């Protein structure tokens, strides 16, 4: 076991991916000498060469579009989009090409492309650097959408994503890049759940708390605080947002009878809405309370001096738990 930050754990995962398959490439803005603005690709160009880890022109549609072409040639490109708010120039290539080409070809083409996106707020950034656009991608058939919550899981999930033959949109919680956990560099992937499975982090009996990415830590802290107040919270890290691991979700909600979904993204049309609809349909007779959502407001991401009011924190999540328990 090694103690690593999330940034470092992802770096180690990428290194493993590059080592295990010569067809794996890393491409994006500033991923070479600089090692990425968050240093996730630090040192990889030096060790694997400029053909395999390379800086691209500053154009996101070009990054994803040429990655598709490389995948058509048999490569497995990992694209870095520098910040969440900069993915939109690539939206057409992701939605209309990357997601649909395998279907268009009746399965004759597969596009094993990973698009890494640092996402979420909490770092005091300027506009377009704190967004949570995951629901926009989860809506699109043909994509897998995942978010890692801690270093150990990030290390495993990035390798699982690179091995996956489908396009994967890989969200990294940027404010957690410097959080540390123990990472098993030897057996990390084997020990991790499959890429499309959620993991139950704490077992509880009163409320199911569903979260992913940056909210995993927040929800874990909430569970501790709730326990001190005598409330038993079951925290589930969804990991995969498309497809959703509904089996794990339903099983937990049928046990607790209550469900709160937490994400930074605006609640309107967010993952919470999808989960609430499915939980209501499948667990209706087990529910003691309506499915509640704690998330960002239906506003653009506010200036950073206001972000603490926008982002769910321990108190707001705990408030959600209390509101659920009040029914």
């Amino acid at each position, binding site marked *: 076991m090694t103690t690593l930050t999330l940034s470092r754990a992802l770096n180690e995962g990428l290194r493993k991916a590059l080592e295990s398959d010569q067809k794996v490439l890393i491409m994006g803005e500033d991923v070479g000498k600089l090692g990425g603005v968050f240093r996730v690709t630090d040192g990889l160009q030096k060790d694997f060469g400029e*053909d395999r880890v390379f800086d691209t022109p500053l154009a996101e549609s070009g990054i994803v579009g040429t990655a598709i072409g490389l995948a058509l*040639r048999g490569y497995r490109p990992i694209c870095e989009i520098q910040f969440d708010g900069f993915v939109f120039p690539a939206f057409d290539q992701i939605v209309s090409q990357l997601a649909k080409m395998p279907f268009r070809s009746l399965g004759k083409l597969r596009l094993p492309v990973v698009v890494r996106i640092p996402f979420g707020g909490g770092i005091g950034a300027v506009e377009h650097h704190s967004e949570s656009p995951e629901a926009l991608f989860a809506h699109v058939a043909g994509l897998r959408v995942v978010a890692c919550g801690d270093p150990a899981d990030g290390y495993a999930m990035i390798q699982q994503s690179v091995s996956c033959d489908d396009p994967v949109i890989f969200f990294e919680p940027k404010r957690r890049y410097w959080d540390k956990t123990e990472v098993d560099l030897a057996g990390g992937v084997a020990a991790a759940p499959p890429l499309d499975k959620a993991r139950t982090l704490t077992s509880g009996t009163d409320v199911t708390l569903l979260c992913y990415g940056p909210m995993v830590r927040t929800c874990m802290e909430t569970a501790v605080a709730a326990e001190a107040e005598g409330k038993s919270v079951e925290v589930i890290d969804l990991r995969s947002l498309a497809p959703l691991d509904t089996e794990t979700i339903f099983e937990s909600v049928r046990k607790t009878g209550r469900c709160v979904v937490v994400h930074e993204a605006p609640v309107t049309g967010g993952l919470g809405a999808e989960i609430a609809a499915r939980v209501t349909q499948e667990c209706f007779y087990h529910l003691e309370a309506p499915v509640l959502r704690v998330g960002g407001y239906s506003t653009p991401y506010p200036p950073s001096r206001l972000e603490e009011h926008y982002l769910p924190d321990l108190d707001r999540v705990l408030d959600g738990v209390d509101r659920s328990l009040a029914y």
Partner: protein
Amino acid sequence: MTPELIQLLTPEGERTEHPDYPLELSVDEIKALYRDLVLVRRIDFEAIALQRQGELGIWASLLGQEAAQVGSGRALGPRDMAFPTYREHGVAWCRGLDPAKLLELFRGVSHGGWDPKEHNFHLYTIVIGAQTLHATGYAMGIQRDGALGEDGEAAIVYFGDGATSQGDVNEAFIWASVTNAPVVFFCQNNQWAISEPLERQTRIPLYLRAGGFGFPGLRVDGNDVFACLAVTRKAMQAAREGQGPTLIEASTYRMGAHTTTDDPTRYRLSAELESWKLKDPIERVKQYLIRSGMAKEDFFTAVNADSDEVGARVRTACLEMPDPDPLSMFDHIYADPSALLAGERAQLASYLSSFVADEAGSSGQEEGR
């Protein structure tokens, strides 16, 4: 300023020479090109007729662009990779794709569905210009595979004058330039983007744009199959040998509507069409073959018979094309089985079978009466 136009066969069917593009073709090769042009036009006519008869939802005609497509298409080696728009029926023909496969898309039976690796002909791309990046990325793969050299590989990507305004096309130019990728950008400037004339896209000849990106651009008579063949051959060979990209602007004319849903009489004058008819890509080859004595009437009769046969084959294939199984819409989306899709598939299957049960039930009642 009249931009240079590379031409090896005048509209009147006279063979000319160009110092940079020597082209030696045998009589059989010239006849084969003529046959390609005629057959491709025939397939196009047949598809338009099928659309008019309600058998295709829509068709994008290549009428007038046969020489650009056949000339460039016949310049490709078997290992080169072509990335088309949705109008490259002539290139598809040159790559050996069964024309009936093209009809699947326009009939609504599939979104394409041929195997791009089988003919080194990628799927049709409908979003304007998106394929230029795919071709460029593919070419970057060729570089990484070490597949450059005299016997190397290259990619060619097709797009139109309208597409040159797209961000993706400009990004592809930049990518190809800075990576020196083995890709040829083949722009069929057919003068119209649906109803928008070239002036809405550009103030300079399109081929001159290449200079700003840092690679050569040239302008060819897109209705001259010889010239299109010669310039594409040279550009592809340069790409294969590691000399990087070329932009070819093939000056041609969309003689028909944008698609069968379009009505060009609303936005352009018939005189313009008439003037381009004098530059028809097929007629000039025919005149050349006749004047030079390379072909007699029996050759043209035989080609016409071939084209009738191809037309009939395309028609039959279209009419016999079954609708896909409704449940097939859940296939191929992901590499591995998806529980979500399996559930929805079962839902639709059960819903559909409920109608069968109803019908059986009601007929049972009738029997009972």
